[in-house]
């Protein structure tokens, strides 16, 4: 009864807009299904490792070959739907009118752990037979779920927090404990589920796992009513948030997204292993320019994350650094209930000790997050506005009395980001979106003036309201000059305010500049295209940085 139950769960969750109702649905599901199936359900719902068994393109091609169905027609349908898995599920209803019930009782374990695993070693012709067998033997209500799992696109509006809440409710245990158990790798098995729902807490099970991260809120004006001495100030680094763990001699590097990234940063693992104490440190990983003592661009860090076994030369050309800002555990003792002031003292004490003791040039990879001491709130403002000089994106303000608790609780930490840079640019190209934005033109390219010509300088697809997207979509269709595949060039007429976080010289772009996190912040209907900014203005932003 498993695939059937899971498909029903998917449909129920997919069409439900109330958090409480979702928790109820999940709790109900977990209590009425077997442990092993529940473990696979959690694995799928959290999308922890959305493994792709087959690409969307192959799914379409194989369907076309199996059923001798024109590929162009599948592609036409795709333009309306924006998801290969759904297109194929919808088209399958044309092929398989009968009721397939043979596999309705198949378990998720059997499908995911046995059947799907075979797929990768099959030859093309056998793949076709295999797919045909799956499609024609599972009930059509499950086609969407199966195709989404196959293409690694299975997602439903359920966050890990929601699963945590429903499990916590199910066994009546503290959410923080469940959240802890769900951190990091969750390998589906009867045992992993049983550990998850164990009412007894076993300290050793927690050894490799990070603590749930404390997340900063956006700056609130009201905190300036309080004394500046109540707060600790640090730069807001633009890297990846990391918990660096060493327990029983083993190092684990966990991202906030709960990925274990030891493999990408072997030099960090190696150097940290030489420290004698055990600890859990919260901090930021960056690619570092040692000459100028500044962080390098985030895109370089991304390069490092994506490399699973970086060569020595990459380690050398893209050197990383870990900036420590909080101590959560020391030699097995949880520090999170101590207030920040105490944790900071302890962090400083231990870190300086390690740096002194080490022979491994630990200082080249481990650094403490320097505190800033603004005298008053006006100076905080100045610090924030100058943050780009240090390659940071603002300040993090922390309540000195705060304890370290999971999630984005109010009144603990705030991020105070520097205002984004902005330019007014002209819309010149539009491309159809995919997924939820299928069938609408939602990916836009913008241009700036240079010597009376419009030069493309950025693409953005977020920031507009739904009603604006629809309005712009209509305008795009009516004002198309030319089409290149899915891209339309449009009459230069519409001006938008584009905001972004960083700007730098780039040889790869025609405009000669690259910006980070571009987004649309305003549709400037009040402006004519001659009022849009020039590339020169953009270059000035780089100089003024």
């Amino acid at each position, binding site marked *: 009864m498993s695939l059937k139950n899971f498909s029903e769960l998917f449909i129920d969750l997919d069409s439900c807009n109330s958090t409480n109702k979702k928790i109820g649905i999940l709790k109900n599901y977990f209590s009425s299904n077997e442990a092993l199936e529940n473990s696979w359900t959690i694995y799928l719902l959290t999308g922890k490792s959305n493994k792709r068994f087959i690409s969307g393109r192959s799914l379409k091609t194989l369907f076309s070959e199996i059923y001798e169905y024109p590929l162009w027609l599948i592609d036409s349908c795709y333009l309306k*739907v924006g998801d290969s898995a759904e297109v194929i599920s*919808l088209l399958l209803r044309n092929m398989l009118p009968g009721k397939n019930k043979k596999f309705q009782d198949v378990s998720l374990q059997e499908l995911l752990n046995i059947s799907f695993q075979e797929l990768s070693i099959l030859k093309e012709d056998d793949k076709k037979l295999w797919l045909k067998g799956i499609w024609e033997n599972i009930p059509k209500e499950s086609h969407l779920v199966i195709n989404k799992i196959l293409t690694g696109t299975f997602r439903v509006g359920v966050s890990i927090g929601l699963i945590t809440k429903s499990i916590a409710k199910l066994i009546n245990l503290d959410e923080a404990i469940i959240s802890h158990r769900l951190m990091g790798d969750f390998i589906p098995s009867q045992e992993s589920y049983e550990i998850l729902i164990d009412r007894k807490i076993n300290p050793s099970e927690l050894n490799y796992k990070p603590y749930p991260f404390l997340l900063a809120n956006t700056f609130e004006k009201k905190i300036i009513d309080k004394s500046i001495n109540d707060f600790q100030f640090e730069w807001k680094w633009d890297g990846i948030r990391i918990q660096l763990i060493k327990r029983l001699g083993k190092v684990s590097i966990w991202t906030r997204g709960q990925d274990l990234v030891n493999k990408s940063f072997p030099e960090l693992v190696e150097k940290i292993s030489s420290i004698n104490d055990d600890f859990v440190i919260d901090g930021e990983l960056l690619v570092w320019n040692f000459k100028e003592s500044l962080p390098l661009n985030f895109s370089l860090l991304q390069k490092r994350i994506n490399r699973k076994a970086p060569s020595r030369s990459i380690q050398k050309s893209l050197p990383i650094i870990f900036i420590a800002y909080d101590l959560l555990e020391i030699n097995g003792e949880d520090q999170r209930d101590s207030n920040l002031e105490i944790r900071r003292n302890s962090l400083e004490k231990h870190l300086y000790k390690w740096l002194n003791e080490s022979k491994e040039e630990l200082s080249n990879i481990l650094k403490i997050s320097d505190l800033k001491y603004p005298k008053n709130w006006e100076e905080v403002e100045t610090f924030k506005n100058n943050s780009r000089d240090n390659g940071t994106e603002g300040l993090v303000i922390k309540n000195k009395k705060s304890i370290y608790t999971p999630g984005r609780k109010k009144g603990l930490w705030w991020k105070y980001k520097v205002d984004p840079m902005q330019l007014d640019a002209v819309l010149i190209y539009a491309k159809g979106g995919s997924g939820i934005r299928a069938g609408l033109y939602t990916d836009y390219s913008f241009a700036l003036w240079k010597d009376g010509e419009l030069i493309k300088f950025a693409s953005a697809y977020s920031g507009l309201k739904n009603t604006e997207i629809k309005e712009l979509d209509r305008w795009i269709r009516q004002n198309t000059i030319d089409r290149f595949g899915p891209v339309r060039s449009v009459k230069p007429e519409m001006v938008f305010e584009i905001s972004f976080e960083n700007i730098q010289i780039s040889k790869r772009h025609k405009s000669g500049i690259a910006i980070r996190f571009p987004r649309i912040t305003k549709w400037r209907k009040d402006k004519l295209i001659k009022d849009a900014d020039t590339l020169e203005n953009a270059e000035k932003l780089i100089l003024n940085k």
Partner: protein
Amino acid sequence: MKKDSSYLIKYTSSGLYCELADVWIDPNKPVKRAIITHAHMDHFTLGCDEYISTYETAIILKERIGKEIKIKTYDYEKEFKINGVKISFHPSGHILGSSQIKFNLADEKWLITGDFKRQKDETCKEYEIVETDYLISESTFGLPIFIWDEPKKTATDITKWVGSSQDKTSILFCYSLGKAQRLLNEISKTNFINNIYSHSSIYKMNNCYKKLGIDIIETKKLEHTKNNSDLKGNLIILPPALNKSSSLKNFKDIQTGFASGWMSIRALRKRSGYDKGFSISDHADWKGILKTIKDSKAKNVFFHHGDSEALNKYLKEKNSINVLEFKYK
């Protein structure tokens, strides 16, 4: 193939036109003489000198626009002549009174299906198969991803949706004319036990259907009900134009749904802004369109309404039929 100009029916920017009979079909501008396929407002323009339609369409039209118009009615199948062109109405199965229009001149037959569907619908006459040489039809849902569920299933889903949220008021959006009455008819066959409230525009159409002999279950007129707690656990049916925060702000604790053929696509459902989508349509799905082409035995087809690019290409590849592409005049 004949030249455009010699066709009996032409496609112009104002709509389909039969020059010989000097009659327009669902014109979008005021003209001398207009044949109206059905009473949806996107097929009707005020200000024509003379209208021709089925009796049911005429009654519904007058009710909707609340004005006298000069309208001549003919029964289904009854042939009439204008300037020697033989014309007749045939049920199209879209809504009550909706019709296909057959034109016949010197043994050459043209059929305009208008909006049509092949699914069962107890609130209107079933689509009649009419053979023709030239078929002009609509392709609103002209892609193979559109395959309709049984309306019974959709109605059961709606009943379940309302029943499982008794702490909320369920608001279902659907077109006031046709869809609303069909849904009410289908819902009445499920084990729906709660109250149903209709918006005045829907209430009016319900009465109109009843007057024309269609059995529609009793609903309460929404405007008579001010008390929010009365609405809790019940179903309200509203036209889609009212899905705005300003119209909904008077209701507390609501869940919203939309009943439309577009809702059969998850991506569109997610984007629609409704909490829930119910797939049901008064247009033909892909199979319905293909079946209609085959049933009509037409040698030439032409599609308007909706994106017909894929459908045209599909038909051309199958090579059994001549796909015409009219150019605007």
